[in-house]
């Protein structure tokens, strides 16, 4: 991974980066590799309003924007907000979203793009963002095309896709990862604070902990 000059993360929701790949991000940042997060939406339609609730449907996006900025500061990465609305990405014109992304990628010239694996990313926004990101990267000339690491989270990913190409044990970055997750206060607060404080709960949640500890990616094959 030392050879990467710039990494672009393309995911739709504030907190997707924290849960999905913040350990990997911290590893890149430790090597001084610049990372830019292209965040699709502000999670305007999220269900978590804090517990007890401190946001409502209309104020949630302000909270999530601030949380996103805080998380990016904790991870020491650049942020570009793409301005789409939560839950509607799959209904946007994919070519237009891909063109939008391609314009930004042309500017930042990443050597690696991390996004969701379309069809294996569970949330419709995840699938749509991943598909648009991969389409944007496909439009590069082969010699200038960044590598794509796609994140699959479907239950049947191993059956269908096989073993992931990249598995990162991010145990050494776990504190930093937790800080990024906790920055997304409206989303993470309830579960994660308990998770962190209670050893018993940590035991109970060992499956969940494994998901957080190992960040897995499939390398996208553009020849297929």
């Amino acid at each position, binding site marked *: 991974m030392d050879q990467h000059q710039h990494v672009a993360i393309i995911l739709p929701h504030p907190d997707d980066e924290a849960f999905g790949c913040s350990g990997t991000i911290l590893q890149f940042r430790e090597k001084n590799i610049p990372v830019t997060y292209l965040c699709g939406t502000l999670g305007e339609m999220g*269900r978590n309003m*804090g517990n007890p609730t401190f946001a409502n449907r209309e*104020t949630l996006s302000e909270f999530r924007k601030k949380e996103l900025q805080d998380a990016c500061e904790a991870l020491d990465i650049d942020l570009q907000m793409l301005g789409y609305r939560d839950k509607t990405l799959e209904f946007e014109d994919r070519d237009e979203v891909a063109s939008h992304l391609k314009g930004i990628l042309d500017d930042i010239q990443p050597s690696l793009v991390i996004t969701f694996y379309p069809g294996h990313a569970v949330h419709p926004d995840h699938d749509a963002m991943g598909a648009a990101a991969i389409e944007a990267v496909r439009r590069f000339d082969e010699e200038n095309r960044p590598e794509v690491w796609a994140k699959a989270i479907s239950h049947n990913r191993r059956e269908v896709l096989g073993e992931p190409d990249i598995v990162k044990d991010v145990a050494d970055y776990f504190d930093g990862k937790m800080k990024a997750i906790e920055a997304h206060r409206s989303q993470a607060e309830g579960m994660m604070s308990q998770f962190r404080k209670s050893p018993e709960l940590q035991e109970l949640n060992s499956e969940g902990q494994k998901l957080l500890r190992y960040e897995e990616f499939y390398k996208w094959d553009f020849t297929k």
Partner: protein
Amino acid sequence: MEMIQIDKVQEALDHLANKDVYVHLETTNGAYASHFNSNAYNVGAFIRNAKVRYKHAKIVGSETFRIGLKMDHGWVYAEGLTQWEVDDKGRLIMAGHDAEGRLMVALEISETPFEN
């Protein structure tokens, strides 16, 4: 937001009657419902900035509340509302949440459009 006080919400609903208003109506069990529970399946619907005019509105219930807005042609209905506020823009915001604070239903009425 605060727990719904039926008289106050009725007053706010009456205040918005017979005017062109914008409605946000939503219900959801989340995009991960079936991911975490194979017996569940995802349902959700929202409409944002529907422009309506209702001639009469009523809130009914005790711990959780139902609201119906009667229009010349048809109805707007929401069930499961527990919290409310009139925000600094004068918008009537109401919602119902599960025990973990996750939104399950929202009904919002405003004289000006909600941001896209």
